[in-house]
């Protein structure tokens, strides 16, 4: 990672610095920027109960890879390494499928990644049976809420990064 210009994750990942028109436009909506960072902080709060931080980071890496969103995948991979997550589990999120978690005797993670795939790729196919597979795998209702908000937030975050990258590219092309 290059030296961050701010402690705002989106600015860091897109490479937005004060002085650019895209940065200025974004920070005209400071309340949105703050709530975006606040959502990230809340979703990856180590103290959040019900769903472990490693589970949340594995979901984030898997979702970023599926979209794909390379900057975000790199960010979440780095956080998993910092958290000293099991390399075999990182490999599942990075390159594997939910069944691979099953083969590692991680049925809870397999259910979580399977739900992630549906929500990221085909949210309209997420019917009641897909949701009820989570409590059937021993995942509590508060954990289901945390997981659903996390996947939905990631869907927002990858589009925000992609759109800001395009705005920055347009600004640079016309400089």
């Amino acid at each position, binding site marked *: 990672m290059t030296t961050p210009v701010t402690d705002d994750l989106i600015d860091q990942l897109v490479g937005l610095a004060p002085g650019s028109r895209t940065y200025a436009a974004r920070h005209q909506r400071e309340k949105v920027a703050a709530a975006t960072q606040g959502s990230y902080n809340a979703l990856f709060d180590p103290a959040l109960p019900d769903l472990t931080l490693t589970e949340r980071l594995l979901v984030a890496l898997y979702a970023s890879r599926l979209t794909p969103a390379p900057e975000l995948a790199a960010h979440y991979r780095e956080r998993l390494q910092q958290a000293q997550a099991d390399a075999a589990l990182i490999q599942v999120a990075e390159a594997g499928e939910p069944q691979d978690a099953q083969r590692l005797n991680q049925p809870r993670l397999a259910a979580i990644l399977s739900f992630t795939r549906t929500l990221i790729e085909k949210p309209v196919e997420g019917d009641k049976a897909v949701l009820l597979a989570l409590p059937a795998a021993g995942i509590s209702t508060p954990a289901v809420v945390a997981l*659903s908000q996390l996947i939905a937030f990631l869907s927002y975050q990858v589009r925000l990064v992609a759109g800001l990258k395009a705005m920055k590219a347009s600004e640079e092309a016309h400089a």
Partner: protein
Amino acid sequence: MSTPATFQPATVIRSHGFTNESLEWKAWLDVVQLGEATPDQMAVLEESHPKAKTSDYYLFLVHQPHILRERSTAFNAIMYAPGGLSRAERELGATVVSRINGCVYCGSVHAQRFEQLAKRSDTIAQVFEQPETAGTTAREKAIVQFSIKITEQPAALDAGDIDALQAEGLNEGEILDLLHSDAIFAWANRLMLNLGEPLLPA
């Protein structure tokens, strides 16, 4: 997220499973019972939406109050902040994203909001019928095209997609507002589609 029941669309639109009629929404798992909510959960419900205490959607999400608080702050700042892109055009973006994702509930709410703000629903009828060609002006068509692309292929967005909006007169602040409203519906649609289902009122 609900629109007051007093709003009646001038013309009922029903197309491809979508409608501008008012719908309700029911969660598939247990919601927080108001009598058992913590003071923190009550505070987050009160700041999220005027009707949150009677809405299955908020009563389900308030199982994680701190996450809901940030999400509600982001949502309200994106959809209601003054200045920038007109609120009707933000609602158009939200409706297109909901149509592409297949979210009938959000499609209904934001079709109604567009009609309330723009005093017409012609563009919404087009979005429900065939989003790929929707838009009554070149500016609306550009907004619709951007909203479809960011929903279906975010990784393929590039400078040309921004230039196409600028060519129709959108400045950076307006483009950012459109980007935010499209992106927040990637979030909202997944909650509405995957945690419960829409119902026609009894």
